């Protein structure tokens, strides 16, 4: 584990462990309280597996009332709490603390209501993202945000992280697709924010909770909006001889008034890596590969995909393939969806970065990243959600070599700083968590951070809920780690990451 600073351990809490567990047994059934090492070991990390730490104990409450009573007790006794959904987060947001109880919401795993009349689903937070779509697809509906871990990640975690996906440009992220939540504050207060209406009146606290990374409350129920499945989906696979041509093409597509459902870019290193790994049949003589996906009504999709082909030709594309059927469309995505494991196969370890940049800065950013790759003598492959400017460079390294992890972390840190310099942000969809915490002052000054901390204090006056996450502890811009995968030992290795 890297030397990241965590809040000081409160030994008085650790010392009264027995008392705490005896009390907790009155608040939930004993089988929902895990305290033995073997039981709590699986919770020592989330999907940012470079960081591990055992919690004081793990509680698996079964209902909102239990959550409220547990939090009230922890508030009274000054016990820290770390909430956790499915543990698929990539920034260490659910990393346990030695003196904190980990509240796992996995027993909140039921869909409570499917309301086709109001086009929404009410779900407990432990329900997986994809199972919401599965529950409504028989009537032609789906839930739009599609983070790559959607098979395993929970909807409560999606709200906490404001998860995105490849279709964010057109359909938005979680915050644009939820109607309401029930949360429990650290002092045990149960609040319902929003409901089944569009928008809410007064302060948009639903918008505040979404993406607050478990620092403001524990989510116990989520109401999501469902959409009608588009009539037609088509994709184009387009190769370019230079990064500039590809970047220009993306800008021109947008400038032509087209908002694709998804627009993904891979650089040459990733094209070769993914093609070797998944035999996707990608053209290897191109520097940049663009996948554009359009959805909507049949005639609109046909019309727009032809316009995209014309724009591509104008921007010197060397290859263009338009999917003729669903099988071919899915085949375009095979390599892209294998990006992470493909890098895992090329090097013992890789770090995945997650910054956002303005779309127009793509060629410049790739040039800069390649320069840094030479400087640190570490190979890098790049994928980019070009529609929404979200960049995922994958730095390959060998953690067993002396100093290579430190070099990788420095490299990653420079990439994120570059994103901010280019007018982008530190994190597009993975969250700040513990990972980018000390880089926050690259984007925010003291006033900005103090304002955010005031909000935190107003809802969690004792700073007991998920402390040590998101906001700098050291108040300096230290270089911290990224998503670290050692010899393919990624947490949830079977989840496609893209």
């Amino acid at each position, binding site marked *: 584990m890297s030397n990241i600073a965590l809040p000081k351990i409160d030994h008085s809490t650790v010392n009264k462990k027995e008392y705490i567990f005896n009390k907790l047994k009155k608040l939930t059934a004993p089988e929902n309280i895990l305290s033995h090492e073997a039981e709590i070991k699986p919770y020592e990390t989330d999907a940012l597996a470079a960081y591990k730490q055992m919690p004081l104990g793990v509680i698996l409450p079964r209902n909102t009332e239990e959550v409220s009573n547990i939090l009230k007790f922890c508030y009274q006794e000054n016990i820290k709490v770390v909430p956790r959904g499915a543990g698929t987060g990539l920034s260490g947001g659910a990393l346990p603390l030695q003196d904190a109880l980990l509240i796992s919401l996995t027993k909140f795993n039921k869909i409570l209501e499917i309301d086709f009349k109001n086009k929404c689903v009410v779900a407990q937070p432990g329900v997986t993202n994809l199972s919401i779509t599965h529950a409504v697809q028989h009537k032609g509906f789906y839930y739009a945000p599609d983070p790559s871990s959607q098979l395993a990640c929970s909807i409560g975690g999606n709200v906490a992280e404001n998860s995105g996906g490849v279709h964010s440009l057109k359909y938005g992220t979680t915050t644009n697709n939820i109607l309401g939540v029930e949360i429990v504050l650290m002092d045990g207060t149960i609040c319902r924010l929003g409901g089944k209406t*569009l928008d809410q009146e007064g*302060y948009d606290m639903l918008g505040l909770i979404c993406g607050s990374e478990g620092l403001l409350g524990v989510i116990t129920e989520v109401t999501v909006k469902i959409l009608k499945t588009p009539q037609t989906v088509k994709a184009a696979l387009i190769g370019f001889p230079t990064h500039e041509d590809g970047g220009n093409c993306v800008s021109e597509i947008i400038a032509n008034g087209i908002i694709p459902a998804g627009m993904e870019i891979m650089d040459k290193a990733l094209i070769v890596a993914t093609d070797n790994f998944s035999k996707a049949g990608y053209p290897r003589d191109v520097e940049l590969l663009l996948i554009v996906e359009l959805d909507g009504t049949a005639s609109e999709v046909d019309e727009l995909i032809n316009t995209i082909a014309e724009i591509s030709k104008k921007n010197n594309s060397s290859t263009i393939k338009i999917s003729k059927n669903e099988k071919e469309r899915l085949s375009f995505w095979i390599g892209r969806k294998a990006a992470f494991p493909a890098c895992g196969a090329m090097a013992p370890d890789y770090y995945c970065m997650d910054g956002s940049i303005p779309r127009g800065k793509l060629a410049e950013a790739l040039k800069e990243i390649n320069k840094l790759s030479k400087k640190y003598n570490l190979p890098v492959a790049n994928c980019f959600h070009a529609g929404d400017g979200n960049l995922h460079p994958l730095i390959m390294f060998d953690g067993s070599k002396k100093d290579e992890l430190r070099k990788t972390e420095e490299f990653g840190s420079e990439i994120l700083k570059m994103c901010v310099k280019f007018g982008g942000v530190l994190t597009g969809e993975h969250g700040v968590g513990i990972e*980018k915490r000390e880089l926050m002052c690259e984007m925010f000054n003291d006033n900005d951070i103090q304002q955010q901390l005031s*909000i935190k204090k107003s809802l969690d006056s004792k700073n007991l809920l998920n402390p040590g996450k998101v906001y700098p502890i050291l108040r300096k811009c230290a270089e911290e780690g990224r998503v670290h995968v050692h010899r393919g030992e990624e947490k949830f290795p079977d989840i496609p990451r893209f």
Partner: protein
Amino acid sequence: MFTEEKKNFQISQDSNNVYKPVDEIETSGFIKEIYKKNLPTEIVGTNTKNFIGNKLQCAKVLDLSRLSGIVEYLPEELYIKVKACTPISLIEESLEKNNQQLAFEPIDFGYLKDSKSNKGTAAGQLSCNFSGSRRFKVGSLRDHILGFRGINGKGDIIKSGGTVVKNVTGYDLSKLVTGSFGTLTALTEITFKVLPKKDSISTLVIYSEDNKVITDLFDQLLSSSNEISGAVYMPNELNNKNYTKNIEKIFKFNNLKSEEPFVAVRIEGSKKSINERIQDISQELQTNKMKTSILDFYQSKLFWEKINNLELFSGTKNNLLRAVIPPAESLNLMKYLKNNFKYYIDWCGSLFWIEVLEEENIQIKEIKETIINLGGYLTIVKKSESLSADIDIFTINDTRLLLSQKIKESFDPKKLLNPGKMYRDL
């Protein structure tokens, strides 16, 4: 602000205690002063929407209207960054040149106030968070704010968000500030997400006055994959001299033939796609058994403008209520409203604009209860002169009020910015 400037800074204002800063630093300096001296302050822009919310009587007025102008507009990056009080008309004019738009359709409250167009400023729109007819398709105003800069109640310059759509760096304060009616910050800069305009528009008009038929149409439209971007229901106007009859005057189109109540459905896209979708929707809704007509591009453009200008209530002296309910409850609300009120429905069944006669205190309270029981919320957008002052303008429950107070305190610990504008204790 530099130390020297700080030393020299004095609250200077005209005889009405109105202070008009020219930039963010001056705004910050002013708020630092009112913080030091505990002076409650009303924040205003160009006063197009200041009738919404509780009336304020503050020691000072902070007029931000001089913070105006486009800071940066990058069409290919789909954003426009503007100073807080940039007129919406200027923003829309600039976007138009690149065939782009604020897709949430800013509401024009000018007609309600003075019977003429005035969309006010960026900050005014953001502070109210009222969105037009496209809301149910593209999201509300709050979904189109990428970032902001502003001054909190202590005088600190703060910012949140950025210019990119995918951003999870820190709390999303843009959402919190949107719809806060100036009670959390004095805004100085706003970044809007912009979207391309579609090539063409058409409107399918279906005539019916059967509540069940109408709400079924809404339900079918929400379940359609034909991507409609607007659906309103316009009932017949009441024969009551206290309500002005506007429908005939404002919706005078050749193709809007009948005087019957109608549902209007907007379809945007390429001409070919629109034609195909109208056919498809007509089949889905089985309109062959109903009377229908089509508004062409020009008629449609005008029609939806008039809807989003609230021209139906142009110049009214009565109360205007804005109720948002779960769409499946629209039939129940229609049954409740009967023919007793002038109203129309937007957002495909979710949004009701209801005009209630002056002095109808009891009725407004009753409507509010009904809306809350239906799972919705109600805002009294315009209060008539004679409406009792003790009627709450916004809906809130005790827990949310408590949370709101905590949030207010975190931005504005002395409750100096627009105090009581939304809720009396806020």
